[in-house]
């Protein structure tokens, strides 16, 4: 759909024989492999390297896998010091240059699309000028080899290293006179961790210089490679940016600390990539042809999945929503960008009117994304419709930040009470602390008293809310509550069938 080609990094299969790793990666539908030269995977110092190269080349061709060569092995040059020596070390820099030149020759032998490398950590005591000088010299020597073989190089900014951010990589290119064969490897997780702008924006900044992309999730300021969905990366937006800049290289999953469960992790990543790619294509289409939202919006669950966004604490997606909810929110944001306010109003109304329960939920969760383009009256009409329904997920989605910002106090209070009534966790109610008042306290207290009078239990959420409100609105309810009945979890009323 987008023309992107996904690969998987062999360093995420460190416990597999290389041939086995290639088989698993190909069988999962990946188009290529980012091959880290390491002692167990095509050791560039092995005596029988030519024979190994033959075998790997045959294997790649048989499985129709593209390849890029990665050089980030931890203990290939020094068994005691991780990554040592580097291009900016005090000593041994020539050994790193030698490794990279070997990598270039191996890449040429394999028909690899590029050789990727990083700068290394600047030793204490060395100043920036020294760093630039060492780096320029080493990269210059590797570039000579690259020229001879016509293999592009990709310099990867790496958190904590001398070249840490994109800007540093641009600086080195400038110092070397913008050599044609010196491109950039971008790890999109690193962007989340250390770049000042989003991964998608970094993709746009690197633009035509991109020769290699690594895909993984990450949290800000933490250099830990995570599976998709575990960090803050906006994967669909990032893939969308790759399509936008016309990137044609390999985008390979980089999870070097997940080798213990590689096949499962790689399968999950493939699923996440397919979903994100579909969504990237969908939002792109909506931006050019807004009417396309009419058929893409209903299809989100089939392509992106329907599970909860945060299964651990929110198994039913009532609080944070579901994967398809998030996809639909992204589509609404695209619709807003591509349409006038009256168009947004008409389309959002129709998406809700003609939507099934999941689509209606997606519209409700997307209301903040169209706020401003959609008149508040029109948005509240949908919120009120949802609050009349019997669907717990619609009720939960209706009481998000949009209702917290716009819904009248009477309607909002009844929404909160309805949550208690039908079993929506109050964590789903945005702005509860801010908007709760004495009247809500009275309503919840009466609800609890009525339940107790009937010999029934008060939901734990109701008790928690009462305790919260009691602190704030002490004395608002004159009726003391005999809250001594033990409260089993998970019981709630229905709204009746007719």
């Amino acid at each position: 759909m987008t023309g992107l080609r996904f690969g998987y990094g062999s360093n995420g299969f460190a416990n597999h024989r290389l041939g086995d790793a290639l088989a698993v990666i190909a069988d999962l539908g990946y188009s290529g492999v980012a091959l880290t030269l390491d002692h167990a995977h095509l050791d560039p110092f092995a005596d029988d390297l030519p024979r190994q190269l033959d075998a790997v080349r045959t294997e790649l061709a048989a499985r129709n896998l593209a390849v890029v060569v990665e050089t980030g092995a931890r203990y290939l040059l020094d068994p005691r010091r991780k990554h040592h020596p580097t291009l900016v070390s005090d000593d041994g820099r020539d050994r790193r240059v030698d490794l990279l030149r070997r990598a270039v020759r191996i890449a040429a032998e394999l028909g690899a699309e590029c050789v990727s490398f990083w700068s290394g950590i600047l030793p204490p005591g060395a100043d920036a000028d020294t760093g630039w000088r060492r780096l320029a010299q080493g990269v210059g020597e590797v570039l000579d080899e690259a020229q001879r073989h016509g293999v592009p190089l990709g310099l990867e900014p790496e958190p904590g290293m001398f070249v840490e951010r994109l800007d540093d990589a641009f600086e080195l290119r400038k110092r070397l006179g913008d050599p044609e064969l010196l491109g950039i490897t971008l790890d999109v997780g690193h962007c989340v961790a250390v770049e000042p702008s989003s991964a998608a924006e970094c993709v746009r900044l690197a633009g035509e210089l991109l020769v290699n992309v690594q895909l993984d999730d990450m949290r800000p300021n933490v250099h830990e490679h995570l599976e998709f969905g575990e960090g803050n990366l906006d994967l669909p937006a990032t893939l969308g940016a790759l399509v936008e800049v016309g990137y044609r290289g390999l985008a390979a999953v980089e999870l070097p600390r997940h080798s213990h469960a590689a096949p499962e992790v790689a399968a999950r990543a493939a699923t996440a990539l397919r979903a994100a790619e579909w969504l990237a294509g969908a939002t792109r289409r909506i931006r050019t042809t807004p009417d396309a939202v009419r058929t893409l919006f209903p299809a989100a669950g089939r392509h992106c999945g329907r599970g909860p966004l945060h299964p651990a604490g929110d198994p039913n997606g009532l609080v944070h929503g579901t994967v398809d909810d998030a996809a639909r929110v992204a589509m609404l944001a695209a619709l807003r960008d591509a349409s006038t306010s009256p168009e947004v109003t008409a389309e959002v109304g129709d998406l809700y009117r003609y939507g099934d329960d999941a689509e209606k939920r997606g519209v409700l969760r997307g209301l903040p994304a169209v706020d401003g383009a959609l008149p508040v009256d029109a948005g509240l009409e949908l919120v009120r419709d949802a609050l009349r329904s019997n669907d717990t997920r619609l009720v939960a989605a209706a009481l998000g930040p949009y209702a917290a910002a716009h819904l009248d106090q009477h309607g909002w209070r009844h929404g909160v009470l309805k949550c208690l009534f039908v079993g929506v966790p109050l964590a789903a109610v945005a702005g509860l602390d801010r908007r709760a008042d004495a009247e809500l306290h009275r309503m919840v207290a009466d609800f609890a008293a009525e339940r107790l009078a009937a010999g029934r239990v008060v939901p734990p959420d109701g008790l928690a809310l009462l305790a919260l409100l009691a602190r704030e609105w002490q004395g608002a309810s004159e009726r003391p509550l005999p809250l001594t009945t033990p409260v089993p979890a998970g019981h709630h009323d229905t709204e009746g069938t007719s």
Partner: protein
Amino acid sequence: MRIFDPHIHMTSRTTDDYERMHAAGVRALVEPAFWLGQPRTNVGSFTDYFDGLIGWERFRAAQFGIRHHCTIALNPKEANDSRCAEVLDVLPRYLAKDGVVAVGEIGYDSMTPAEDDAFAAQLALAVEHELPALVHTPHRDKITGTRRSLDLVRSSGIDPGRVIIDHLNEVTVELVLESGCWMAFSIYPDTKMDPDRMVKILQRYGLDRMLVNSAADWGRSDPLRTLRTGETMLAAGFTADDVDAVLWRNPVAFYGQSGRLVLDGLPGFGGSSAADTFAGNSVLRGARV
């Protein structure tokens, strides 16, 4: 015996029927959009009905352990009412929905020009939305209607392997057999097929591309005619595997072409852990503790 009823109008049936169907082995069904006894007079009446097919009825079926899918279309009889023609404009939205596994019922009632237009337009929609099509053959002048339907299917360019021609009988089956379309038979008291005649057709023409449905609706009909046909097949010497092919694997293969069949077990029916709600709906069957 596991049963997939590929054509039944559950909107018109009671919860007792759902219970009996589950007890009989029905685990999945397709409810085609069709006419109600009372004619509709506007597009809104259709959209509320479609909303029910993709929402409420799916929920209702799930409470009885049955996976509900539907087909969406402007039916041939109401295609003749100009007040309803605009429903064609909203169909693309519904054809994109989860659980919509075909365009249907389309076809002929009285074979009017208006029916020609609606039929052709909706075959084109099936191609565009990559969905199979469910074609109803008329009660009156059935042979002519079946021939004309097959002609229109051929000229539409849709793959005949993605088309069901429904409500067939002894006089129309051979026309469809040659066409490559799937052959469906409604086992419906008095007006359509019965189990004994159905078994004879299966004995004569084999099990390939054969579908058996109850077509139960608001008329005098029986949602367990699928089960009865299975029993009659066994009594006539067909194997349990033959019955499974006709009553489960064939409809799964046909409607599976939509890519939208969901056949996992339902919460509370052994397939997965019991849940309080189905798709978030808090209105549940029976009294709650």
